């Protein structure tokens, strides 16, 4: 799994590629924690190269979704979900929880 983070003016863009399994999920958590620890709560995840995400990875996403949305201070929005990942999210009942965008540009503009 590879993670790159970019800090823009209003939002942070986190690109997650590869496989987020239980071994890799802590690194995703670390990357997101670094952003919220810096008091920044508007995060866009670019998932175009995400091949697989396990329940461990999903737990991290839900946890940070809650953190970001607390007190209306921000949100965690997702972009570029492949049909496979969308299916996984649908099965887990998550697509109604997250705001989804067809591109990272749209996600960034939504803030």
């Amino acid at each position, binding site marked *: 799994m590879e993670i790159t983070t970019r800090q*823009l003016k*209003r939002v942070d863009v986190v690109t997650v590629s590869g496989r987020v399994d239980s071994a890799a999920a802590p690194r995703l958590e670390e990357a997101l924690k670094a952003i919220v620890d810096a008091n920044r709560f508007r995060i866009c995840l670019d998932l175009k190269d995400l091949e697989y995400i396990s329940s461990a990875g999903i737990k991290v996403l839900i946890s940070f979704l809650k953190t970001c949305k607390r007190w209306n201070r921000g949100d965690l929005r997702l972009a570029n979900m492949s049909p496979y990942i969308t299916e996984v999210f649908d099965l887990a009942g998550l697509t109604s929880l997250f705001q989804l965008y067809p591109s990272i*540009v749209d996600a960034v*503009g939504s803030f």
Partner: protein
Amino acid sequence: MSKRWELTVDGHCENLATIADFVTEAAQAWGLNEKATFEVQMAVDEACTNIIEHGYRGERRGKITLCCECADDDFVVTIRDNGQPFDPEAIPPPDLTCRLAERPCGGLGLYFMRQLMDEVRFHFDAEGNELTMIKKIS
């Protein structure tokens, strides 16, 4: 292949950061290098600031619609608003060499836009104002 992104926001300074991020991401998605991306983002910031402060007179009266797209080797940003139109020819470029006391404060934003982008075109009609700025991708 052509890709197009559009964003509409309220014409208020609080939205300048979102506008900047939107344009930055669109430029990056098209492979503009860092310097070109910064120049596009700054030109758009200046353009939108002018719309907010002069077109809408800082009164939050309208919206700004931005469209980013790529056509051939050009990265094209189109900005539309419904504020007061103006005559770009009536704004002289600032005199960069005159002394401090004589430096006027206006005209810098438009000057920057023209310095930073390869093409800057205004169009005003009954529907509203449209600004087109082009950065050549090289």
